[in-house]
């Protein structure tokens, strides 16, 4: 497909009434043929995508480095990420990639109405994604798991015994305000177009109203799934809290580590660590440890529950502390410190869990910013396609936005297993 068919192209008429001499109006004057214009814009887009890939690779490099250095922190903190919501987001983005590729096909075949529909569907998926993301973020902010730059006292404000759920709704409301305002504006535009019988505006406003309403669909979806996960998280939290309690009890009695005796009590704790019984289990264990007072039962270490592998690190620390308390010399390995408060600090301070959440918020946050930029560009495309500006020889904008959107989806395809599916 040579692009130097100048002579034929100059004299070619293709039935359009909007020529300026030889050039159809969609052909910029510095290009000779529509195909040359298309190829040039495509090349520019691929070069931009290369910069995007390299940009995200920096974040992936940070991830790779810190995960390599602190695998237990990543495994433990990954428990806070809701796999179901992440999987839903992945499915939604994959579907949006399908509708985007289909939209490109529609533009190439001049199927204008379907094109607007497909672009609207892509937009809706993007906004569902953002809605689910808003639920995830507000839920974490409510728990005190904020980006490490905002940490008071350099410590994560996460207290397993007192999960703060009240604030998350406030954060969610603040995050949703811009979307609600935009939706309101779009509904007003739609009504104005309806009453003014402006068909073109109706074709634009309709899909946009549906799309921005889908943000709240995403919120609803997230709420349904997050409440199912809430109990699961509280059971983790109570197990972690029970582990902390045992550490203090062990130090007070200073007795032998007795893992065999711990299985019955550990088993009881594990079973009791369900959402409803969290508070009472905490109290029961403390009273039983204090009441018995005997060396055999005092220093108990709970068994590692299957759902929270991050507690393995804490268990190692407790065992090493026991050895040191008996007068033994523990081999210094990563994370062993003599102070009793260390196990609590070990996971939830800026240098450990803070690193994980810093990386998490950076990667998903920057990805979400890219989604927002994609939404802006897709809205522009909806407006243009409603005006039927794309033709068989001029579909570059749709194609290029499609490329951008697929890269955004690609990044998420890698993000999802790396952040959400760590064992």
């Amino acid at each position: 497909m040579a692009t130097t068919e100048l002579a034929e192209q100059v004299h070619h008429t293709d039935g359009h009434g909007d020529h300026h001499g030889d050039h159809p109006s969609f052909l910029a004057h510095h290009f000779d043929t529509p195909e040359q214009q298309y190829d040039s814009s495509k090349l520019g887009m691929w070069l931009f995508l290369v910069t995007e890939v390299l940009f995200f690779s920096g974040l992936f490099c940070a991830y790779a480095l810190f995960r390599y250095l602190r695998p237990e922190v990543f495994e433990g903190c990954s428990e806070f990420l809701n796999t179901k919501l992440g999987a839903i987001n992945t499915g939604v983005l994959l579907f949006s990639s399908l509708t985007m590729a289909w939209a490109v096909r529609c533009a190439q075949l001049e199927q204008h109405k379907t094109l607007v529909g497909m672009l609207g569907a892509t937009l809706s998926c993007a906004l569902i994604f953002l809605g689910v993301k808003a639920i995830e973020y507000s839920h974490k902010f409510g728990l005190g798991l904020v980006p490490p730059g905002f940490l008071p006292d350099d410590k994560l404000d996460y207290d397993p015994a007192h999960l703060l759920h009240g604030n998350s709704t406030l954060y969610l409301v603040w995050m949703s305000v811009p979307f609600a305002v935009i939706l309101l504006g779009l509904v007003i535009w739609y009504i104005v177009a309806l009453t003014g019988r402006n068909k073109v505006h109706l074709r634009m406003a309709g899909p946009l109203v549906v799309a921005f309403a889908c943000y709240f669909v995403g919120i609803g979806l997230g709420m349904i799934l997050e409440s199912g996960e809430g109990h699961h998280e509280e059971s983790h939290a109570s197990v972690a809290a029970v582990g902390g309690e045992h550490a203090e009890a062990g130090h007070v009695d200073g007795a032998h580590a007795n893992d065999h005796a711990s299985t019955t009590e550990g088993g009881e704790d594990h079973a009791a660590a369900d959402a409803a019984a969290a508070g009472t289990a905490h109290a029961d264990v403390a009273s039983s440890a204090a009441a018995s007072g005997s060396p055999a039962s005092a220093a108990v270490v709970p068994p590692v529950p299957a759902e929270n592998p991050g507690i393995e690190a804490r268990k190692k620390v407790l065992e090493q502390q026991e050895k040191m308390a008996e007068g033994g010399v523990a081999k210094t390995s990563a994370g062993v410190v003599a102070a009793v408060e260390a196990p609590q600090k070990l996971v939830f301070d800026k240098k450990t869990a803070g690193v994980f959440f810093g990386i998490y918020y950076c990667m998903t946050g920057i990805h979400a910013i890219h989604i927002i930029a994609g939404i802006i560009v897709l809205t522009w495309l909806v407006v243009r396609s409603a005006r039927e500006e794309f033709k068989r020889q001029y579909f570059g904008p749709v194609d290029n936005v499609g490329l951008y959107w697929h890269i955004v989806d690609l990044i998420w395809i890698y993000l999802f297993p790396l952040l959400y599916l760590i064992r």
Partner: protein
Amino acid sequence: MALHSTSGAHGHDPHDFAHPFPVWGLLAVFFVLVFLTIATVAQSRFDFGSYEVLVTMVIATIKASLVVLFFMHMAFEKSYNALIFVSSLLFVSLFLGFTLMDSQTTKETFEVKSAADQ
């Protein structure tokens, strides 16, 4: 002498350069991607030990290749664009490779010394 019209009649203009992807192809790729996503979530339930990350990355790379080759039309495009994209992956691998290699050369200086050492 209009060789094609805009009203939807599909006359074949020799200057058309678009190759629209068939709908069945789009749907097929989509369903394979969904299947692979389910596979990824399912494999996280099993313990592959040290191969965990590798298996995950292999599945993710297969999905990424499908998206790039078909949804982004790389399989049907001018190979110059493909060359540019693949070269970016080369640079990413250099970046990650050298950085991770370099991280091996320093000792773990981030740990708090225990009381025994002080």
